[in-house]
């Protein structure tokens, strides 16, 4: 591959060939533990989805249980809760996208206007903080902050609003989900936009300053247009996860009072499967979600490639 090889190859051809076989043998051996892992812990469970097409009973095992075809999928389509769950998933995802997507972009654009580097760094570092905590901890904090006598109600009380237990009220529960989701992720999601802003050619700004462009005009006519490819790509990638409405968050915040507005596909799969032990039914709903998700991810991946975002695609 480099300049010195042809010379050597000419002289020691058989040894070299032997070496070559040997070297790949070592590499292939190194790969074996990983392959076993992927087959055992990823492909075997993938095979396990056949229980969605069977009447799975623990006593009979996966092999022994009877095939029932699409029975459980048809059951899902007859289950009113299934539609509630899909509606909730889409609604919650949509609202999270609507507010959660522009937030990091605005944050990056505005923080970029701050000239004090130290201040900027501190704001950025603090903004990532909530991203590093689990929804168990964040959930506990949210419950405490939104409690009937907590700070949020205290603050609203100053404006004459009567205290409400928002986490137990179906009118407010989804809003709390969206607000706390933005709180957790806006800083972290802004990183990619900060990087994109940093990579904009400085000459553009210098030229526009000479032409007398104001700060506002520079933001509107240089920064935003230069950011738009990244924005489009990120938006498409987000769309591919529209069925993930945030299991960890909802599971740690919801309660029976608000099930009808907050029960999403993932929480329903969990409750049907591990609480009510309807294994086949739960797997069927999970498989339905996975199938739609794969189509979404694969197609958005092609779209992203097509709009020129090769760096952000999976393959």
């Amino acid at each position, binding site marked *: 591959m480099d300049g010195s090889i042809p010379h050597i190859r000419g002289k020691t051809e058989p040894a070299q060939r032997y070496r070559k076989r040997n070297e790949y043998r*070592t590499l292939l051996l190194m790969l074996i533990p*990983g392959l076993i892992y992927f087959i055992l*812990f990823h492909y075997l469970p993938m*095979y396990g989805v056949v229980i969605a097409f069977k009447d799975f009973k623990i006593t009979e095992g996966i092999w022994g249980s009877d095939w029932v075809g699409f029975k459980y999928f048809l059951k899902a389509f007859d289950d009113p809760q299934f539609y509630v769950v899909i509606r909730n998933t889409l609604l919650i995802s949509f609202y999270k996208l609507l507010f959660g997507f522009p937030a990091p972009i605005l944050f990056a654009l505005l923080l970029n206007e701050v000239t004090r580097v130290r201040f900027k760094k501190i704001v950025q570092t*603090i903004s990532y903080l909530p991203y590093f905590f689990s929804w168990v901890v964040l959930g506990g904090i949210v419950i405490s902050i939104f409690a009937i006598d907590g700070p949020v109600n205290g603050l609203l009380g100053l404006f004459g609003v009567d205290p409400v237990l928002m986490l137990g009220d179906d009118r407010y529960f989804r809003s709390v989900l969206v607000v706390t989701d933005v709180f957790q992720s806006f800083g972290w999601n802004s990183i990619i936009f900060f990087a994109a802003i940093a990579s904009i050619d400085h000459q553009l700004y210098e030229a526009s300053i000479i032409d007398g462009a104001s700060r506002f005009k520079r933001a509107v006519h240089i920064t935003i247009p230069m950011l738009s490819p990244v924005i489009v790509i990120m938006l498409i990638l987000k769309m591919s996860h529209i069925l993930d409405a945030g299991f960890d968050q909802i599971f740690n915040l919801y309660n029976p009072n608000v099930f009808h507005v907050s029960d999403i596909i993932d929480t329903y799969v969990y409750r049907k499967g591990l609480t009510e032990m309807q294994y086949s039914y739960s797997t069927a709903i999970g498989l339905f979600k996975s199938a739609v998700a794969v189509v979404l991810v694969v197609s958005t991946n092609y779209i992203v490639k097509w709009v020129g975002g090769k760096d952000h695609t999976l393959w």
Partner: protein
Amino acid sequence: MNPIRKTAGEKTFDLFLYALFIIIMFITVYPFWSQVVLSISGDSSAYATGVRIFPSDLSFDSYGLVFQYKPLWIGYGNTILRTVLGVALSLIFTSLTAYPLSKRGLPCNKLFTTLILVTMLFNGGLIPNYFLIKNVGLYDTIWALVIPGMIGGFNVFIMRNFFRSIPESLEESAKMDGAGYLRIFWKIIIPLSKPVLATVSLWVAVYHWNAWFDSMIYTSDASKQVLQIVLRKIIVENNVDDLNAVLYRAGQGSKFSGRQLQATIIMFSLIPMLIAYPFVQKHFVKGIMLGAVKG
């Protein structure tokens, strides 16, 4: 820096920006701070409505009490164990998988890559995974928390790409000296890959520190629960019976409100993360730019 003198309008805008970001910082930090305040307040009515910046009557009594709560320490032990084991196993097996794949000439490279890529797109789902863990005998062991997520597809590709960026001439010269691939991997590739190894370890470590769902479904024995599950019982499920038992034994039954004890418990998970945060955060941000999977 800016060659043009700022107009009055721009100055007002600057002021507005600083004010805005100070408010944003406050909103981001306050929820965490509120737990600190609550946990060190001496009075039991610690949550009198409104935003409280400082504790009214400083006291660390609730910490002393929570210290006596045994499950917390069991949880800590398990979380530390799973984090250490998880990071070690992940690093070893992820790098071992990524290195062969970094060689474009490897037979069936494309097949292996696709095999891993598919696992990033699709997984068997909750129930099949649950029965796998039960059937292979991992249920209720620490391994159920460590092995299933041991090698992440994304981490494999991040490492593979990093390995590819190491100049081939370094390996060639080692080969000339008669070193095998295993030796090259251990003596040359690994020492040169510290940045990517550090990033991946931190990702895995933070994942393990925060993980709770697997512990909830794959372990049932009280001695196997991780910290997040102990927290969850008390702060999310509001199941404070055990903690109350500790209280009564200490004869301090009515001194603390439930929410104050919950805040104190939250602190036990917050503090280690806050200490590690400045360091972890820097590497995470570097890591996010490490980039694309394909190649």
